[in-house]
């Protein structure tokens, strides 16, 4: 006769066994699903963070051949179709340099604006122009030029569309000397194969929850995160409602340097203003989106983010005018509604289509699509991408 404690232990053991079997099956199903849907490895690490990594010199770039779900990096380290490293005589190249909004996040596969720009050019009788998406998620002022020199210049673009995230530029701080980010996956924990089923189940649960309840939950949880972040970063200081003047000046100086650097390298730069969802009139409506973005710019209040975008976009327009650089005014083109924005800075398919159209119009206005117009002074000393 077993004691009641022994019976309870057996029942609990069996229950734990069922939970373990269920968890293993769910994880196996998720891995098989990834394998058949995206060709993902069954055992190895499979995560969006695997799409990019710092190289030996600390320059963050996309990992050639990496893929995660709909995101695929080509052999040269860019999102989209592979293009030949060597140029074909008579064909022109346009590079699009931005961060996650240009890399593409929420759009359908091949729906990011550079891919749409490529299709638009072909539709509008410019089949001799190739567009490549040179964006890297999180690319910032610290490594941008080094990245361009090392990985973009070997493709010898005639035109480089500089799509700068003005919010990141507004809150950019150069890293302290002697510090650098640890390489991804360095710790043992990070190298362990992470669960693939949990993110999928989380997404499934999200779909089950009615939108109104989900938004309330997000506002609540993001408000908490922002409050905690403010306490950690700002202490008792209030966040700024207006972008500090020196931040705008620093950005202007950087922009002028960037344009000069591209021109020196024989590339015709094209600027784009940076659209965001935020406006003074829609703060309540898009509360969750505001909070979600604020986590990255805690020194700026919500009004501060709106002000920063407005002022830095004005800087882009002014500098473009002064230095005779074409400006694609995407900020003016995109209505500030969720029809065009999936979150505060990333686009829906409709938003990406509008951005592509705006960039196309700017290129056309500047005559950069006409054969033989772009002055190209080649820089031959750059490395090939590894």
């Amino acid at each position, binding site marked *: 006769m077993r004691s009641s404690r022994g019976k309870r232990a057996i029942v609990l053991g069996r229950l734990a066994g069922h939970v373990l079997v269920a968890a293993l099956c*769910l994880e196996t199903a998720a891995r098989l699903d990834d394998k058949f849907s995206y060709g993902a490895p069954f055992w190895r690490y499979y995560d969006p963070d695997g799409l990019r990594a710092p190289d030996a010199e600390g320059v963050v770039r996309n990992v050639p051949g990496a893929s995660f779900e709909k995101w695929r990096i080509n052999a040269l380290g860019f999102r989209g179709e592979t293009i030949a490293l060597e140029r074909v005589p008579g064909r022109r190249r346009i590079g699009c340099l931005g961060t996650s909004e240009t890399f593409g996040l929420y759009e359908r596969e091949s729906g990011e604006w550079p891919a749409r720009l490529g299709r638009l050019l072909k539709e509008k009788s410019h089949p001799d122009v190739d567009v490549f998406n040179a964006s890297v998620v999180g690319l910032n002022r610290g490594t941008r030029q080094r990245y361009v020199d090392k990985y973009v210049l070997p493709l010898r673009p005639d035109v480089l569309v500089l799509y700068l995230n003005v919010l990141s530029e507004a809150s950019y701080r150069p890293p302290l000397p002697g510090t650098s980010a640890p390489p991804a996956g360095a710790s043992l924990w990070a190298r362990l194969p992470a669960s693939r089923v949990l993110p999928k189940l989380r997404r499934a649960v999200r779909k089950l929850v009615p939108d109104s309840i989900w938004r309330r939950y997000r506002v609540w949880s993001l408000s908490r995160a922002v409050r905690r972040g403010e306490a950690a970063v700002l202490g008792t200081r209030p966040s700024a409602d207006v972008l500090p003047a020196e931040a705008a000046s620093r950005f202007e100086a950087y922009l002028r340097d960037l344009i000069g650097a591209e021109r020196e390298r024989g590339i015709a730069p094209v600027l784009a203003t940076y659209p965001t969802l935020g406006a003074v009139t829609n703060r309540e409506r898009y509360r969750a989106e505001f909070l979600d973005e604020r986590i990255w710019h805690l020194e700026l209040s919500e009004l501060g983010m709106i002000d920063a975008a407005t002022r830095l976009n004005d800087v882009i327009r002014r500098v473009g005018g002064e230095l005779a650089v074409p400006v694609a005014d995407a900020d003016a083109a995109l209505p500030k509604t969720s029809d065009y924005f999936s979150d505060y800075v990333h686009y829906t398919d409709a938003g990406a289509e509008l951005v592509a159209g705006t960039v196309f119009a700017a290129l056309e206005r500047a005559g950069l699509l006409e054969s033989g117009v772009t002055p190209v002074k080649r820089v031959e000393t750059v490395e090939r991408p590894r």
Partner: protein
Amino acid sequence: MTFGSPEFVLFTLVVLTACAALDRSRRWIVLLVASATFYAAVSSIALLAILAFVTVISWAAALGSERHAGTRRANWFFWGGVLFPLGALGLKYAGFFVENVSAIAGWMGRTRPIAAMPVVATIGLSYYVLQALAYLIDVREGTVPAERHLGRHALALAFFPKLIQGPIERAGTLLPQLREPRPIAIADVAAGARLFVWGLFQKHVVADRLAPFVDPVFSDVRHHPGLPILIATYLYAAQLYFDFAGYTDMALGLGRAFGIRLTPNFSSPYFARSIAEFWRRWHISLSTWLLDYLFKPIQMGLRHWRTWGTPVALFVTFLASGLWHGANWTFVAWGLFHGAWLAASVLYRPLQRRIHRRLRLTDSKLLAVAQVALTFHFVCFGWIFFRAPTVGDAIAATRLLVSQLPATLAQAIRGNDLEALLYLGQGRGAFLAAVAAIAAGAVLRALLRHSGALTSDPDEQVAPVGLPAAYLRTATYAVLVYGIAVLGTSAQSFLYAQF
């Protein structure tokens, strides 16, 4: 709130909790209120009023018919009770009737058009009206006693798991379960949940995945060559089965959770060796209803016609079956097609048996396979009429299927234009996923049936399974949950709810 949606699951959990918390004698109140709330949410207050009207009339008519049994007054009660629900069912056909009368008037030279009737959505009406009619007939024939408790009678008609798409329950099996409800047991809730999950899988992972292949072809059937129509027809056969069987399993699972056994509607219908057998395996609750309350009385009435009595009874029964499915000539054509084939098969069966005996094929496995394949293709051919928007479209589809199949098949074999011909414009990956989903549905169904996990009967004693089998079952349900949560496509409405 749609059947199987998250809101519906939450609603069911609340109702189940209330039932478990309350005294068993009061459970009918909770279930009746829940059923009325559900019906109002999925249809309209007007349809809820019609349901209440049919309920009260059938309840009173059955009581009157029983009390005055053997007298002329019993007939009045009976026919009154039958005509009112049939009148309510007329709502479904009013538009169809007016449209056709108008067309006939037009042919006869009448120039003034007859005002068109609006199409009325009659969710669930066809199902509970049949149930009310069966109840009245059963009471009249003394098969079941009239129910004195209006609430219980109302619940028998409106029990929410089976209200909008059946199964069409008989008073003789459902009312006793409502009179003496079983306690809400963890084992029943668990078994019911398993059935429900399996039903959701069939609906969201298999059936809904097939809709994007089928719908574009049948909505523009005249512009598709032979092979796409053939593939869309096969996929529609799978879609219809998994959609309806999925719903039925969910309903059976919910019934079981509440301690109520509902009638299974399917028994591997596409493995039938003849059309008669198909109808014993497909939508069983409707087939048996038609058999008992329509076919048998007609057959009895025509028994002096000798050889022709049964075929004519079958023909009429399936004409009615077609009309029951919808107010459209396509359903009439589909019903006539099945009726004609069944009628013919009654006539040629003796000859068929003689041939089989002569050729020594009676127990041949090859013959069985050939019969299954032939029956399946016959049924699929019928589905063209069932799915096409008009009879003209169905005829056009048949013509294109016959005339262009060889050429398009040859093209596909050569590997030309596979995207349009084979994948129906959805891409190779999506097509393979759809085929894999059908295969997974079929294999899992076989596995679950074999393990006894699909029983809807709380009284059925399933042998306790050993530990490995229990773990295997857990593993299977984990895969089903993954399929529903991650691979399930956006929900489409149930196909059979429109009938």
